[in-house]
């Protein structure tokens, strides 16, 4: 009944190649966008922004970035936290060094700087694969965190080693710092998430994405049919680093406002983003969103349910939260090893036939 092609005629290649070729799917997508851009900003408050929407949007960008590297190009990376730190510190240095330039460009530049760093740490991928590469990127994680702790130039020689985001405005509206209105911070991140998702979606279904997937599926075969592994792998590291860097910059400047590298961008962050894409679905943009939503919203939801509604002790709730989230991850992956994205795909197939399954 839903998601049917019947009666949905395409008269040009552009129409045929669009991201959502099915009319129903497309309208659903427009509806989500409309709600996200035109409804949510009016009803959002501090709590929803800081506890739910900002982390969700920012982790979604990070997950998209990592998904390009791991899901599309097949290069396992455990350095996401370190690369997010590069984005955050680049953003901090740019914000304090060039206060007259708009924060929007600082964040994009931070993404560019992270891309360069990511490429440098991606060089070993040309010789090592799989678990060995994971170890090399793990080294990046520890090295980068150590670097930002050790070299005080990165935190402008402040006594505590913390970086603090000064107030910056876009069109005269503050988006960073304590005075930022919830809707402004939300819209600022939403714009980045929206653009990142569009870029990622279109890169992955274009030539670059096909090269990455060829490398992922079998690198020797890909090389034989003419894919340059050097370019393909390093471009995946660069694009991935760009998105992860943007996520790190937003995480620091808009979401947290003050960051301590060891705590915020530690190894747990790398694993968290990796879990997001595994649960969401490797090689899927929707999966990145689904995974981020799952791991950001579920703990908040459980906490509100257990402590707020049921009035349980906070420590019991915190421990149960770990157990429930862990159990759900196992259950989801047993039920559908390809993640939430595959679940969604299957659901769509079922809906097409519903209510006449034969």
């Amino acid at each position, binding site marked *: 009944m839903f998601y049917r092609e019947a009666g949905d005629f395409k008269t040009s290649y552009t129409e045929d190649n669009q991201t959502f070729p099915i009319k129903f799917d497309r309208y659903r997508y427009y509806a989500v966008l409309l709600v996200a851009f035109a409804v949510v900003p009016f009803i959002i408050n*501090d*709590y929803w922004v*800081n*506890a*739910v929407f900002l*982390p969700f949007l920012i982790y979604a960008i990070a997950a998209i970035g990592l998904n390009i590297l791991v899901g599309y190009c097949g290069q396992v990376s455990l350095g996401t936290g370190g690369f997010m730190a590069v984005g955050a510190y680049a953003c901090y240095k740019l914000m304090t060094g060039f206060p007259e330039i708009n924060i929007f460009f600082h964040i994009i530049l931070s993404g560019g700087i992270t891309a360069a760093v990511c490429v440098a740490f991606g060089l070993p991928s040309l010789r090592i694969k799989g678990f060995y590469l994971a170890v090399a990127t793990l080294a990046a994680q520890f090295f980068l965190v150590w670097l930002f*702790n050790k070299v005080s130039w990165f935190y402008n020689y402040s*006594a*505590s*080693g*913390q970086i*603090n985001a*000064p*107030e910056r405005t876009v069109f005269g509206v503050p988006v960073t*710092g*304590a*005075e930022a209105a919830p809707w402004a911070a939300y819209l600022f991140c939403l714009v980045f998430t929206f653009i990142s998702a569009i870029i990622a979606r279109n890169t992955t279904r274009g030539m670059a994405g096909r090269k990455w997937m060829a490398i992922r599926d079998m690198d020797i075969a890909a090389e034989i049919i003419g894919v340059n592994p050097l370019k393909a792998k390093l471009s995946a590291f660069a694009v991935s680093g760009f998105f992860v860097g943007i996520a790190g910059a937003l995480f620091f400047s808009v979401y*947290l*406002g*003050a960051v*301590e590298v*060891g*705590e*915020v961008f*530690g190894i747990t962050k790398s694993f968290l983003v990796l879990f997001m894409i595994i649960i969401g679905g490797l090689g899927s943009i929707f999966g990145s*969103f*689904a995974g981020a*939503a*799952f791991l950001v*919203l*579920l703990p*908040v*939801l459980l*906490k*509100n*349910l257990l*402590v*707020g*509604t049921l009035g349980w*002790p*906070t*420590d019991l*709730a*915190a*421990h149960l939260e770990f157990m429930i989230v862990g159990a759900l991850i196992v259950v989801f992956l047993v039920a559908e090893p390809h993640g*939430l994205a595959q*679940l*969604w795909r299957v659901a769509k197939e079922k809906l097409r036939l519903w209510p006449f399954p034969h």
Partner: protein
Amino acid sequence: MKMKLMTVAVAAMMAAGPALADLTIVDTSYRTGPYAANGIPFSDGYQDYFTLLNERDGGIGGEMVNIVECETGYNTEKGVECYEATKGEGALVYQPLSTGITYQLIPKATSDGIPLHTMGYGRTSAKNGAVFKYVFNYPANYWDGASLAVTHILDQNGGDVNGKKIALVYHNSAYGKEPIRTLEELAKKHGFELSLLPVDHPGQEQKSQWLQIRREKPDYVLMWGWGVMNQVAIQEAVNIRFPMENFIGIWWSGSENDVKAAGDKANGYKALTFHNLGSDYPVYADIQKHVVDAGKAAGAGDQVGTVLYNRGMYAAMLAAEAIKTAQEMHGTAAITSAQMRDGMENLEMTEAKMAGIGLPGFGPEFKVSCENHGGNGFGAVSQWDAAAGEFKLITEYFQSDQDVIMPLVEEDSSAFAAENGIEAGC
């Protein structure tokens, strides 16, 4: 998936709703994670004191206190979530018990007009109330701690530490880095040699740091540790047979949990404190009677009288006294967070006041003012007595080196004011 989850979340939040009471105190505790061993007793003490006031006196000034607990796990992201979730309920004051979360909350709380009390932690230069209007760190701060430790070492060496080697083992975070500036200044002033040994979160791995200490043989080791890091450091010090009386921890590295694991060998370990220890005070009888025996204790009730329980209770007592001050100033029992700020800024702790609430001589006397949000920097040194199983005060309360600290506070706070466009003034 996402939408469905959110619908449920909305439903859960609606059902939760704020519990309406007049004086809301938020306890951002951590009873889970690598810092739980220290977080639990503090939180128990903090909550039990307010419960005592509710049960025994019917609240403060006739208004009941509503305690809202929120678990942060010592994690800044969860700390922010807690702050945003609870500030709408009319929270009067936040006591985050985490330097990382404090740095997050300073701009947010200032903008929302809710005072922060970072007792003995947080941003040291918040002592300058002309810049940090909503942040209080009385009665002592990290720089006082650094200076107190050095003063104690000076006392032991007859006032001369020239050429001595002092090593600082610190948690590699904003918390651990705070004292470095002051120690560097003090090293210049007194001519000792300072070496820095960072330990990364959470601090279970310290072999290399203690190997270095074994090699360099510093005369004294100072420690800025928290959570599991303290236990590991003290065990390592025992392992390399470092003389425990030359090992001095900041007040956050001096609780029973930290030393007990190392057994009898930890005997003689020293730690600073800015309040008294033990449970030999009238208020404990009341806590036992009205809170623990009545089954209303926040935790298991087994922490009463431990160092960190006392500290949590001391923090609650200072908050309650500030509430009383605010109630007198504004002539209303149901105060707001802005009035609470005034109460904190005009708080005066005297001997008579402390004796009146059943805690005679429990902490130093001090008076908060707009210029000075940090007290006078008095502290004492305590020493672990393994046989008795308790920390004992071995010095009187003495003052930190204000000549060194005040210029640093001035410098750091004016840098903050310039960075954030704050106009300093009282």
